[in-house]
């Protein structure tokens, strides 16, 4: 790299690295072999990940014009998404832009993310080993393993975050103030708590006097917290350009860290979906796909396709050819099962009370399911007939479970969306696999859910939990309908689509729907308590919320709640178990993983930020 890197030091290099994915401007180099470097510039200490194709010789004079955004963030500018004017000769990625990276299970690919869910670069290691690059990165950066995906490593460099936060705010127009702040930043690294407590008040004054004469200093502290905590926790959501208006901090329990907001992202688009598939139509990165869906859902026109994967109709790794075979088999199986009950003679049915009863239950419910939707309205409606046939065939598919009230509510949106009997049947069957314990004969599954809901509520909002307890509502039975049909009765159809596909991703944890419940309940807290509602009124109030809820706001808060709970220093194994977090030995509450020291450190850092920053203004 010496030929194009004046005053820069090569920290690492590796041959045989193929560029698989990057900005489309570099498409000419895709699948080309090259050399990957980590470089550091002596004067600025900025580090870069560089990749140079074997076929190209780079000259130093082309360097600056190609990547003019280098250091841009220090000048308070956003990185230019536009490709450079001149034809690029190689990839040069500012490490400050990398928020996380993913190492494939086979250790043969590495992907760098920008923190907004976008891929910066994706490399393939010909010799099947990206260990050395991984080790080099670990040596240079502080990282933590993502709880969502153990292959994702989130970069947690608080210095960087602080630098970036202050710089982005563009506060420091005179060098003296800047030096005070950077001095603070340096000592913060060494003695976070003391520095935060002691020095931040001064900085507050400085900022107040020099930079923000008319406004409260609060946005700065929030910016810092947001950057750091968010980056640490999510590794994907960059807060570049986030304004204080983008979030609010909600205090619900003294034990929990502050609530951050997680605005929903963009839905998975057709182009993105296509790009996620390999040449044979297999989804390569399932977890990434699910994460995208968790954030922003699926574009309405694409739901028909993607729901089949979410509901186990097609395996994620199926090729186009596989899917053709699978579809044929599923069609055959469905019609075979349908014939089984369709061809019963009247006298057979007459002497088969268990089946007859089940079929009668289906009929009773089908005629009154979503009849206000034009899709199911009117006499002799063929969609209603399809719903009935699917549910009856499901009785044959799983006779022990049969038909239980609530199932028609789960099928209706699926049939509405897919508009195909066979597809809807198997997707419904896949959905039932997830929720069949809701329909246990002894209600065991529902009781467990309600009890888990109470445990989570008591942990996250003891005030509300104890109020409900006092009103004999601690059994949470007023949430029965929410949980039984996964909020299907609470939202308008398109919001149900959205909520369901988010829950089906299993992100960010198990039982996310219980956190959704709490996010709804906490908004009712003031009415519950203020109006002294009792058992009856609470149930009535909750039933009457139907059609009045904002799905995005609720998902946003439920996700915020998840991180609050997860980062709480009081987190119990009981709560961990419900959310599917790793359990820990009772004696050492933080020692739950190999990177526990990092976790602990980060937790302390977060706490120091909050304590220090808040204290300085109170």
């Amino acid at each position, binding site marked *: 790299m010496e030929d194009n890197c004046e005053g820069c030091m090569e920290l690492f290099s590796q041959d045989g690295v193929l560029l698989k994915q990057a900005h489309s401007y570099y498409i000419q180099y895709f699948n080309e072999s090259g050399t990957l470097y980590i470089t550091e510039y002596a004067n600025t200490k900025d580090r870069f990940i560089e990749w140079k194709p074997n076929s190209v010789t780079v000259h130093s004079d082309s360097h600056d014009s190609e990547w003019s955004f280098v250091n841009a963030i220090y000048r308070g500018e956003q990185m230019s998404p536009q490709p450079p004017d001149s034809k690029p000769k190689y990839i040069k990625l500012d490490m400050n832009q990398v928020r996380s990276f993913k190492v494939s299970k086979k250790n043969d690919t590495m992907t760098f993310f920008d923190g907004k869910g976008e891929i910066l670069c994706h490399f393939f290691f010909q010799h099947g080993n990206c260990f050395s690059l991984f080790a080099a990165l670990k040596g240079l950066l502080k990282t933590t393993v993502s709880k969502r995906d153990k292959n994702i490593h989130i970069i947690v460099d608080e210095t960087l975050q602080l630098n970036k936060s202050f710089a982005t705010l563009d506060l420091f127009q005179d060098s003296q103030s800047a030096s005070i702040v950077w001095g603070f930043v340096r000592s913060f690294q060494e003695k976070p708590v003391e520095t935060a407590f002691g020095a931040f008040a001064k900085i507050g004054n400085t900022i107040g006097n020099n930079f923000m004469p008319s406004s409260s200093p609060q946005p700065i502290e929030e910016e810092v917290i947001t950057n750091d905590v968010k980056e640490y926790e999510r590794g994907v959501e960059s807060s570049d350009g986030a304004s204080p208006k983008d979030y609010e901090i909600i205090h619900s329990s003294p034990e929990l860290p502050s609530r951050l907001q997680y605005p929903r992202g963009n839905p998975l688009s057709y182009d993105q979906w296509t790009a996620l598939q390999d040449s044979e139509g297999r989804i390569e990165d399932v977890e990434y796909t699910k994460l995208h869906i968790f954030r922003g859902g699926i574009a309405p026109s694409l739901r028909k396709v993607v729901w089949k994967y979410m509901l186990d109709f097609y395996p994620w790794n199926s090729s186009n050819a596989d899917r053709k075979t699978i579809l044929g088999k599923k069609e055959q199986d469905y019609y075979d099962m349908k014939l089984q009950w369709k061809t019963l003679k009247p006298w057979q049915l007459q002497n088969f009370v268990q089946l007859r009863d089940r079929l009668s239950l289906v009929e*009773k419910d089908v005629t*009154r399911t979503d009849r206000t939707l034009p899709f199911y309205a009117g006499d002799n409606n063929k969609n209603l007939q399809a719903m009935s046939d699917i549910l009856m065939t499901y009785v044959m598919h799983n006779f022990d479970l049969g038909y239980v009230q609530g199932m028609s509510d789960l099928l209706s949106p699926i049939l509405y969306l897919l508009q195909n009997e066979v597809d809807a049947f198997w997707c419904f069957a896949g959905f039932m696999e997830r929720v069949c314990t809701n329909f246990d004969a002894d209600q065991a599954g529902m009781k467990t859910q309600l009890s888990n809901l109470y445990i989570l509520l008591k942990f996250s909002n003891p005030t509300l939990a104890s109020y409900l307890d006092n009103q004999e509502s601690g059994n949470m039975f007023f949430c029965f309908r929410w949980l039984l049909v996964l909020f299907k009765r609470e939202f308008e159809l398109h919001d149900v689509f959205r909520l369901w596909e988010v829950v089906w991703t299993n992100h960010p944890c198990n039982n996310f729907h219980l956190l959704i419940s709490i996010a709804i309940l906490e908004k009712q807290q003031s009415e519950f308590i203020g109006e002294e509602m009792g058992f009856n009124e609470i149930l009535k109030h909750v039933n009457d919320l139907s059609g009045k809820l904002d799905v995005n706001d609720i998902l946003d808060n439920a996700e915020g709640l998840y991180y609050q709970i997860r980062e709480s220093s009081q987190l119990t194994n009981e709560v961990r178990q419900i959310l599917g977090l790793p359990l820990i030995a009772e004696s050492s509450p933080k020692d739950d993983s190999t990177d526990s020291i990092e976790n602990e450190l980060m937790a302390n850092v977060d706490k120091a930020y909050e304590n220090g920053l808040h204290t300085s203004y109170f």
Partner: protein
Amino acid sequence: MENMATRTQTAQRPNGSAQGKICQFKLVLLGESAVGKSSLVLRFVKGQFHEYQESTIGAAFLTQTVCLDDTTVKFEIWDTAGQERYHSLAPMYYRGAQAAIVVYDITNQDTFGRAKTWVKELQRQASPNIVIALAGNKQDLANKRMVEFEEAQNYADENTLLFMETSAKTAMNVNDIFLAIAKKLPRNEQASGASASGQGRRLAEGDTGARAAGSCCK
């Protein structure tokens, strides 16, 4: 929970003059799926009928007030899910109830059998003084009748149940069956404090009085 006392208190009209007693009763609807429990409640409380009333999941709670002589009777109505699978939830709703309407569908013999099972369960497990009414619903479909009026009447007599055939669709006998229950309920002066189950914790006097006057004295 076992507090059976009827709550009574003297309500004030908005103008301050005494209106008489207010009684508050907990009433639960039980019966097989799709016999019309929710439709009966909806007709009684809101005067509405939906041909394709959706199934009840969990339970619903509604209130309605009727005037009876000098007494205002406030019904706190628990409407439950009928399917056998949700049977285990029912005790939570009929516990402490002073009245129950067990509903069957006159066009379906099985639902009458199921109604008898509910009556037995109430007699065995609910409050001993519970007033039970039997409602043979969907009377508007009498041409498809599978349960004879006399059969049901005899059964009701044997078990000292109130009995009426009703139609939520045409409103036939709907208010009447609730009124008949109200008449049968003890309206003594024995006032109770906050009930154990927390239902109807207090009566906001002006508010309740006004609503009672508006909704039941028409």
